[in-house]
């Protein structure tokens, strides 16, 4: 069974076609890195999978069923952070708020909820962070709590929206390693979005590259090529491999690290690809 199937899916937001007739299949147990420039639609794709944004065309199937919100088999780490950064609430109680959070009742975690919180905090190595108030944690530390929260309820599909932003290289590597171990040990399907390909190179089975409404899904060797990326960015790009790392260059600029000038990206509709 496929974990995710998009069939001719278009998603419109604010009058713009963010995804334009995207068709793709992601198998259960795959680790897929989701890449693309700012505004390419990485977050939109994940929200569509969660059923938070309806497709204006086509069908989205998730774990064998049409995409619908409230699917407990999906774990999600949203890109929008900063939640609770002013609170004295402890990390444990923060993570616990997601245990059965959709069911009505009182917000005091019972024994099983406490055990679940400890399990996920242990998984991300954040046991010690759980005892400290949110307001005293760094951005990266809060982010590890969010990652822990995404693991509550043992999801079969994990949507991690830029889990590496704000993390130093050491924790970036451990975030990727953690996701990889969830995939290999528990068979979890993982969508892992990022702005940089290199930290993901050892972990991804395939990459999903988004740009200008289009999507390219395939192995790194199939997708990270000058011709595919030039089509997605709408500008001439070269791909350079150096010591096991990959750099995408526009002329002499590295597009993952330096912005493509606005006139290269704006003023082009998805149709002129």
């Amino acid at each position, binding site marked *: 069974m496929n974990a995710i199937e998009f069939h001719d899916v278009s998603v419109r937001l604010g009058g713009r076609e963010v995804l334009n007739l995207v068709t793709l299949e992601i198998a259960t147990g795959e680790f897929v890195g989701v890449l693309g420039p700012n505004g390419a639609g990485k977050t939109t794709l994940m929200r569509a999978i969660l059923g938070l944004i309806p497709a204006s065309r086509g069908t989205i199937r998730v774990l064998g069923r049409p995409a619908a*919100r409230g699917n407990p088999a999906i774990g999600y780490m949203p890109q929008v952070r900063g939640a609770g950064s002013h609170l004295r609430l402890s990390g444990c109680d923060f993570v616990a708020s997601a245990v059965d959070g959709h069911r009505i*009742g009182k917000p005091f975690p019972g024994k099983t909820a406490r055990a679940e919180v400890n399990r996920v905090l242990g998984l991300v190595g954040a046991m010690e962070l759980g005892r400290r108030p949110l307001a005293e944690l760094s951005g990266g530390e809060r982010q590890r709590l969010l990652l822990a929260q995404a693991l509550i309820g043992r999801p079969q599909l994990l949507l991690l929206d830029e889990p590496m932003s704000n993390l130093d290289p050491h924790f970036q590597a451990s975030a990727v390693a953690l996701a990889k171990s969830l995939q290999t040990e528990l068979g979890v399907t993982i969508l892992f979005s990022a702005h940089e390909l290199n930290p993901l190179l050892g972990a991804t089975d395939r990459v999903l590259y988004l740009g200008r409404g289009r999507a390219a899904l395939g192995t790194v060797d199939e997708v990270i090529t000058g011709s595919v990326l030039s089509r997605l960015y709408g500008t001439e790009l070269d791909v350079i491999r150096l010591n096991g790392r990959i750099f995408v260059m526009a002329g002499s600029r590295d597009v993952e690290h330096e912005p493509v000038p606005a006139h290269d990206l704006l003023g082009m509709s998805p149709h002129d690809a």
Partner: protein
Amino acid sequence: MRRQTFAGHVLAHVGFTGATGAVLIGVPPPWGLTVMTVSAGIGMGAMAERLLQRDVANGIILALALGLGLLSLHFFTAYATQATALLFGNVLAVDDGTVWTLLGLGALSVIMLAVISRPLLFASLQPELAEAGGVSLRLYSVLFAAIVALATAGCVQLVGVLLVFALTVGPAAAAQQVATGVATGLVLSVEFALAEAWAGITLAFYTDWPSSFWITALSAGIL
């Protein structure tokens, strides 16, 4: 925690409008007050389920309510004492009937809050995640606003429109600064509120100054 303290303030003013309006059309003020606050609460919740738009929605309701309240006052200048009672309240002037009404309102809000508090907390802390988990942000925003409105309607009759803020927001804000757990936070804020109210009344008894003054002074002091 929901960054909605302004809402409590707005609702209190709305309550004032409701009460004055009620006097105008010959309904007991507490009823006008309750009906008006709850409907305004629901209106605010429905308009603004997203954090950023809340203050705008609240502001619109506030302006509308103050305008209407002024209109009602314009028609009923004769009842100045009643208006003062509404604005500033008087804890020591509560009769048996009011006590029962307040108990009813209080119990209703506590029960409603107990039923929805888990998804409410989830939606407040993690709106994105809660939405993905199937929690309707709009529904809980409306329910919460309705509960705040009920509680405010109760408080207004005790401490008055202008001071209700002190009892609904002060203790909770103070508790949030010290407590690291959800449960301890709730218990602390109730304790703070009770301590403020009782100490306020005691001080009023000995000094002969209004109890409302003491309660708000203590509320500010705790923060």
